[in-house]
């Protein structure tokens, strides 16, 4: 049973990670910094509970805010560039964050033992849940409450003008500027929201595994963060959720009987999926309250326009 709760926890934190990239992707930007924000959230929340005895809920929110603040500060210079330049700039930021945690040693004494990040060894004993007698189902529920809240908020946002604006910027930046949208504000706003979500995800992750170290938050995790929403499709938040279930559930766990070979299949299936469904498993048509939006039935207009 515990195995399935553990799996649900992985789904939860990875969904948050994917959603953090989803918000930024809506504006057309591929950010490889999400693993960095996730790491910042993990270390910040770990420090809050394990080193300073904070309650888990405020610690998670605090971690989200710290990540959001850093995302906002990084967004201003980084979002001046786009496309490949942004991929590499954010990659550089993510790696920088990872290397800073690799070098960070900051320990305080609590109950006669030293706790805190300890360089390459990582940050051990983030034991808020076991120390306070939380059962695994309670922890899982807490994670999924956060996932549900974030998904609901993003789903709501997508129905508001903010959501339409993000998609407008993602579709055509020149046109978006011409109608009076402040590109910097929109993109940095998306990045900040993404940072907040990644921070929450990271903080929950840190508490479920109790031991974090820099190696987890590498380029691979950053790649996964953007892979979930692209694979699932940018139509709605559910695309990201489906992709997490597909990758973490089906490929990592569901194909366990295939032993080591399943990790081979994993990359191959992404390649196949992108060839067959280039716009993601659920497509990129925005989902609205009234159900699936009508798809353009035909495209004679486009031919005429040429």
């Amino acid at each position, binding site marked *: 049973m515990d195995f399935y709760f553990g799996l649900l926890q992985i789904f939860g934190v990875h969904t948050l990670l994917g959603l953090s990239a989803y918000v930024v992707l809506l504006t057309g930007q591929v950010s490889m910094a999400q693993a960095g924000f996730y790491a910042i959230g993990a270390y910040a929340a770990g420090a809050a509970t394990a080193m300073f005895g904070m309650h888990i809920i405020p610690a998670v929110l605090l971690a989200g805010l710290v990540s959001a603040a850093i995302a906002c500060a990084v967004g201003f210079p980084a979002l001046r560039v786009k496309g490949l330049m942004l991929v590499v700039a954010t990659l550089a930021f993510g790696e920088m964050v990872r290397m800073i945690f690799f070098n960070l040693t900051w320990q305080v004494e609590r109950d006669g033992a030293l706790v805190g990040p300890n360089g390459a060894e990582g940050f051990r004993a983030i034991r808020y849940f076991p120390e306070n007698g939380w059962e695994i189902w309670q922890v899982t529920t807490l994670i999924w409450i956060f996932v549900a809240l974030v998904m609901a908020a993003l789903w709501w946002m997508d129905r508001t003008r903010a959501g339409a604006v993000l998609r407008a910027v993602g579709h055509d930046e020149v*046109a978006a500027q011409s*109608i009076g949208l402040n590109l910097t504000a929109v993109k940095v706003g998306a990045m900040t929201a993404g940072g907040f979500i990644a921070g929450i995800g990271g903080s929950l992750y840190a508490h479920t595994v109790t031991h974090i170290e820099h190696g987890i938050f590498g380029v691979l995790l950053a790649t996964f963060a953007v892979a979930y929403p692209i694979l699932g499709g940018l139509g709605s938040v559910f695309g990201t959720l489906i992709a997490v279930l597909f990758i973490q559930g089906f490929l990592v766990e569901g194909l366990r009987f295939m032993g080591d070979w399943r990790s081979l299949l994993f990359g191959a299936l992404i390649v196949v999926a992108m060839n067959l469904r280039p716009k993601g498993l659920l497509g990129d048509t925005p989902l609205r309250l009234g159900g699936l939006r009508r798809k353009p039935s035909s495209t004679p207009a486009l031919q005429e*326009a040429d």
Partner: protein
Amino acid sequence: MLTLENLSKHFGGVRAVDDVSLTIREGEIFGLIGPNGSGKSTTVNLITGLYAPTTGRVMLDGYDLTTMAQHERTAMGVARTFQNIRLFGNLTVAENLWVAQNGHEQRRAHFLSRWFRAGGERGADIDELLEFSRLLSKRDVPASALSFGEMRRLEMARALASNPRVLLLDEPAAGASLEDGQLLAERIRAVQGRGVTVLLIEHMMELVMGITDRIAVLNFGGKIAEGTPAEIQRNDDVRSAYLGSKHKNEELAHA
């Protein structure tokens, strides 16, 4: 109202716009014409802020727009359309107008209600614009599914959604037939009727000669003539500028 003062834009050694001064009066339809590559589109891009000028200033009612960002110019009342239509094909028709509500008055709405209220694409102001553009029946259709003519109308409506004071139309008749040109002329007059000043950049001579109050002619980035349509048709410099293209020259004489 809209004034260009000694405006220049150089790309390396190329003088795309060279020392152009213009004054567009409140409420008029002003035509900006010239052969291909004469700097018309660059001028539009300088007015809206897509490019920064090499020298010179853009003034609107005495306010200097030159150093303002594009979104600030929209708030000041400048809006535009594009020669090659640039709609948000992933949004519905109504949403295209919704995201464009960035005018001065609209900006004063409370932050939360402006950005995070659902259903704003069903507002009365948007309906009115859709009605004006004869697109009300298409309100929930993705913009990418519209016909070419509808796309042009939507783009103009989107430009009007910020309640601009001056609207820059960059070759709105490109790709349209002569009959479409007649309809377009009516639409532009209707826009003028809403109290919006229009700067029309156009190749189609009949359209320009028929509806503009005044015209400026660009050639090789410089202004070679300015006046009423009748004056422009008589102008020798304008004729020789168009001489390279005999067809255009005849068009000019007959219009």
